[in-house]
């Protein structure tokens, strides 16, 4: 068995007095598609944000491809990571946000080419070529010159996915990428993600309330509650035969509210 691409070792995180994550540990294998589900406030987003280095951890260790994320070796020992180390590590990770976070003052194409040109020194021409391929993949090449404000939510999110892919990360993080969308637009984004899962061997971490999609998409599902993994397993096991009381209640409520599992 290969080595895990992400190793999380008893990390903790508090906001003020409120402890969001408490001694959490987990591992993700290369190419694995992982779904994180659980009630609101259980810390799912926080985990993705920590992996993207948008929040710092209070304690514990994270290793990406065996290399420490928040620490670096220095004079034989471990020191807190500096900006340079973080920049290096971030090359391996991409993230797609719930509210897209496109740069509103740039065209679709510029949104996708900006980071490769600035951070990888790719030539403008090469960056454009690759961006058009990616936009094509998400079905947005016709809108390359549009501004984000001219796009629907689903279109924005597909551009955001292309933007994250342009840096060719090994790990992609998706935080409720469809929950800000009108129901009719959800499907077009999920289709892109299905395609992505099928065509690449990227490692993907997905936070979602779309249980049906999580079921079809994920290799493994983690159910979170209050910053802990309450239950994990194959999608069929979690959705059809949850063992824990908490998981059962959660799924019952979600189903009652009209979501298909």
């Amino acid at each position, binding site marked *: 068995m290969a080595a895990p691409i992400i190793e999380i070792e008893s990390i903790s995180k508090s906001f003020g007095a409120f402890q969001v994550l408490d001694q959490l540990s987990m591992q993700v294998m290369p190419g694995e598609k992982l779904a994180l589900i659980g009630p609101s406030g259980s810390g799912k987003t926080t985990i993705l944000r920590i992996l*993207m280095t*948008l929040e710092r951890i209070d304690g514990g260790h994270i290793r990406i491809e065996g290399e420490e994320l928040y620490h670096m070796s220095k004079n034989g020992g471990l020191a807190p990571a500096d900006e340079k180390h973080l920049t290096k590590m971030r090359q391996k990770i991409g993230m797609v*946000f719930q509210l897209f*976070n496109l*740069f509103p003052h740039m065209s679709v194409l510029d949104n996708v080419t900006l980071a490769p040109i600035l951070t990888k020194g790719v030539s403008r021409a090469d960056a454009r070529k690759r961006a058009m391929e990616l936009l094509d993949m998400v079905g947005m090449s016709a809108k390359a010159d549009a501004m*984000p*404000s001219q796009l629907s939510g689903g279109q924005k999110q597909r551009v955001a996915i292309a933007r994250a892919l342009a840096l060719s990360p090994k790990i992609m993080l998706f935080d409720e990428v469809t929950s800000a969308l009108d129901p009719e637009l959800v499907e077009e984004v999920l289709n892109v993600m299905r395609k992505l899962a099928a065509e690449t061997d990227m490692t993907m971490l997905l936070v979602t309330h779309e249980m049906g999609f999580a079921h079809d998409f994920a290799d493994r599902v983690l159910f979170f509650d209050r910053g802990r993994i309450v239950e994990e397993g194959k999608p069929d096991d979690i959705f059809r035969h949850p063992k824990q009381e908490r998981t059962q209640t959660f799924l019952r409520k979600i189903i009652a509210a009209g979501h298909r599992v």
Partner: protein
Amino acid sequence: MEWDWNFVWQIFPTLLQGVKITIIATLLGSVLAVFVGLAIALLRRSPNRLVSTTTGFIAEFIRGTPLLVQLYFIFYVLPDIGILLPPLVAGVIGLGLHYGTYTAEVYRAGIDNVPRGQWEAAKACNLTARQTWTRIILPQAIPPMMPALANYFIAMFKETPLLSAITVLELMNQAKSVANTYYRYIEPITLVGVFFLTISLISVVVLRWLEQRYGRIER
């Protein structure tokens, strides 16, 4: 005492001299305020607590006290410590410092108004701090600031009569001087009022345009 058109024509050229000084003072003051404001805004964001709080206190002090008194200070007290400024220079420095504390607030609000998601997306794209500022934050923060900045420059323009206290012969001072010479206040003061109103009404139109052009970024 009634309105005398002949008198109006007689004093018009003198008042125009004042208009020239008023406009020069406003323009120079605005340029200074732009930079002073930027300096204050950046110093207030400094990670060094001493620098940021000291800057904050000084800015609050300047903003909380009257420009008129500050002008007296710059013009009459500073020479005691060997800083002798010509009246117009002292006036421009006074205007620039005073309004710099206002533009600093505009910068701060403009930067704070860029959603947190933009900073985060920039990080997820692995941009450096410098790239984030120049490519993502400032291009979004600056256009919405334009109307607010313009607003303060118009306010500054209307405060230039204060410079008469430090012997700058701007419009208001010219008008008073004319009034003192001929013992007639109605015509000069009314002309000054009409002049300010005209410029203000024009600037309202320009402001509307600025607001439409730069006021909001579509997201």
